[in-house]
């Protein structure tokens, strides 16, 4: 079946089977920023934003996203201009093997919209749903705190 949806602001048509997840459909269409890992909503590596809410795309049917607005990690930056959050991840070395980072950035970017003034505890609570097998949580948390502070002072995106 064919579904119509918006991906990163552009109208797209995706060919999908009823049983396929949004993650599968997105990756086949070339949006490989969302990573396939646990396929059971445990690890957050496949996070995308659907109608303004960050969710695990591995436990969402592609057809559930029909008619909705999907933003993947590829859709956060404006061309070559990274967001303050992405810059903060890069600047803080908030990366080890890097596989979980797109999911973390999508989750954090979306969370910062609902809570522009997060405490460190708030950020750690968000990352409960983003597993890093390298166990590198300290720097991502620092990166989010820095980006949020920057955003509040008006220097962010």
């Amino acid at each position, binding site marked *: 079946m064919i579904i119509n949806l918006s991906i990163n602001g552009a109208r797209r048509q995706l060919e999908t089977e*009823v*049983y396929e*997840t949004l993650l599968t459909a997105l990756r086949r269409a070339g949006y490989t920023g969302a990573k396939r890992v646990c396929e*059971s*909503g*445990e690890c*957050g590596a496949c*996070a995308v934003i659907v109608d303004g*809410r*960050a*969710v*695990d795309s*591995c*436990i*969402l*049917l592609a*057809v*559930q996203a029909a008619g909705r607005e999907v933003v993947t990690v590829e859709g956060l930056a404006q061309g070559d201009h990274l967001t303050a959050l992405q810059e903060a991840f890069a600047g803080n070395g908030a990366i080890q093997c890097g596989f979980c980072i797109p999911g973390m950035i999508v*989750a954090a970017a979306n*969370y910062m919209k609902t809570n522009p003034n997060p405490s460190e505890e708030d950020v750690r*609570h*968000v990352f*409960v*749903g*983003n597993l890093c097998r390298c166990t590198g949580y300290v720097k991502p948390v620092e990166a989010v705190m820095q980006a949020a502070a920057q955003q509040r002072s008006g220097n962010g995106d």
Partner: protein
Amino acid sequence: MRELREYLRPESIEEAVAIKRERGCDAVYLAGGTDVLVLKPRGVTTVIDIMAVDAAGVHQDGEAIVIGATALLCDIEQHPAVRTAVGGALRQAIRETGPWLIRNAATLAGNVCNASPSADSAAMLLTLDAELTLSDGAVVSLDRFFVGPHETVLTDELVKEIRLFPRGRLARFHKHARSKSDIALVNLAVSARAKDGALHDVRIALGSVAPTPIRARETERLLEGREIDAAVLRDVEASVRREIRPISDWRTSAEYRAHSAGLLVRRAVEGLLSDLERRSAEEGMDS
């Protein structure tokens, strides 16, 4: 779920139930999908996505907080009535039901209907006398709803709304797990009304220690209206361990579950007692 070949998105509860009646066991209701897509029930050929049904509201109705079938956990936890209910214990239970990426998709009614023995919201809801209004208008008390693991009294009906009665209650919730995103080794809630310096209408509920979330009624009676000293608290621990039926699995042993269930209920009761003391002190200052 490779057998899946039909996706339907009805716009009313009546329509959804009519489809389910027609398709029977071949169809499954889908709300956020965060359980269905993980459990992948075999043989299901049709999903009935109920998220287009107009039932996402959360509101206060007299004594009750009413939560619609399609209200997301992330919206429920933000609602003012939920934030302030039972000293924040209800909000805590909802937040610990799943990480943020899950709460952005999952519904409370879905967590209840999935009927996991370890459902984190269930213990809290049981201690707030939760009632489920079904699509046929029937009202079922939550403590008569669960039948077994992933099994409820429902066949084709839907839960339309959940009514909770936190007003006038003190409550504590505790999830014991390796991390807040893990499935609970034990979860539990206690609640009671404070009257004349004692606990009344005591409710104790636990998850992950029986085939369904359960009330510990014998233990509730030990506390009802009584002065609670160290001996009573010891009895509480022992009584909880008698009332539960934990199993050993790869998460932990039955012995560990029994040990922690007793201890954690005792601590939660101690928490209620300190809430009670604080409330009595505040009332003393008022008069």
